[in-house]
């Protein structure tokens, strides 16, 4: 996912801003996590795709 799309991204549950931690990639994030401080929930980014499914619906 592109870093500059962070501005329109939100936690699927509380809709708050997410904090990005990039592990691989800079402008184009390949691996990393998105963290919602309010829900204390991590959403993984794998192979460039953020998994923003609600926590109880992830496989």
């Amino acid at each position, binding site marked *: 996912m592109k870093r500059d799309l962070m501005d329109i991204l939100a936690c699927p549950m509380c*809709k708050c801003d997410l904090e990005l931690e990039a592990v691989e990639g800079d402008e184009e994030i390949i691996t990393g996590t998105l963290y919602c401080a309010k829900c204390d929930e991590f959403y993984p980014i794998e192979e460039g795709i953020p998994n923003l499914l609600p926590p109880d*619906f992830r496989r």
Partner: protein
Amino acid sequence: MTKVRKEEIKKVVRDGYAKIVKQNSSCCTPANSCCCNADLAQDMSKKVGYTDEELKAVPENSNLGLGCGNPVAIASLKEGETVLDLGSGAGFDCFLAANKVGKNGRVIGVDMTPEMVDKARSNARNDNYENVEFRLGEIENLPVADNSVDVVISNCVINLSPDKERVFREAFRVLKPDGRLMISDMVLLKELPDFIKNSVEAYIGCLSGAVMRNEYVEGIKRAGFQDIRIIDEKSSPLDYIFNDANASAIIENLEIPSEKMKEVSSSVISIKVSGIKPNKKCDIELT
């Protein structure tokens, strides 16, 4: 509908569409095009109003021929707009949208099926689409900020949601004031017989999840949209739904006699609906 039932439906739909991606990709290798339904997908897409030029301008594998068609929404897009596609599948409408909004615009596709999102992303990569992004997410719980997109599009997907009103509320939330909803979907003119209603296959085939037309439009209104218009209605969509290889399997599995199918066919139509998120400031000034 109970929460458990809703969750069950979502899982069934997700697994069903994951299967469709797998079937499609297993026979769609470049060396083997004979058994693939890519040609059928293109034919069906032309039938629902996409042009040859549009079909040629997007990644070949992005069109799974699953939608009821949303060319009006695509045509309405302007250079520089931000577009959100609910249930983006392999990315077909996203790529069409990306071509319309250009470099300064952006398109985000949300889909809950990992296999679909993988396919969409690899299509975007192969064809160097810089302005399209895909994320795994639920259309009932959009991972998108409030007031952040110009247009919400969706092509024959919301019928699959067990909580359509919530989807409309989410679409309303993420749209900017004056933003527009441009969707196509299957709706009912009369209730379906029980044997269809209770069929998992028919649910995945965009049939059992469909609600009455009035109920659908009322849901959009209750979410807050104004200036709601039914731009187009097409009867007998089953002709093209059930031309689809996946759908003919549904008919076979259900062992539905042809006269029953005619009855079902006359109950279902595809519609294209638009709505506007009102700009509250303007409303206050006017009153």
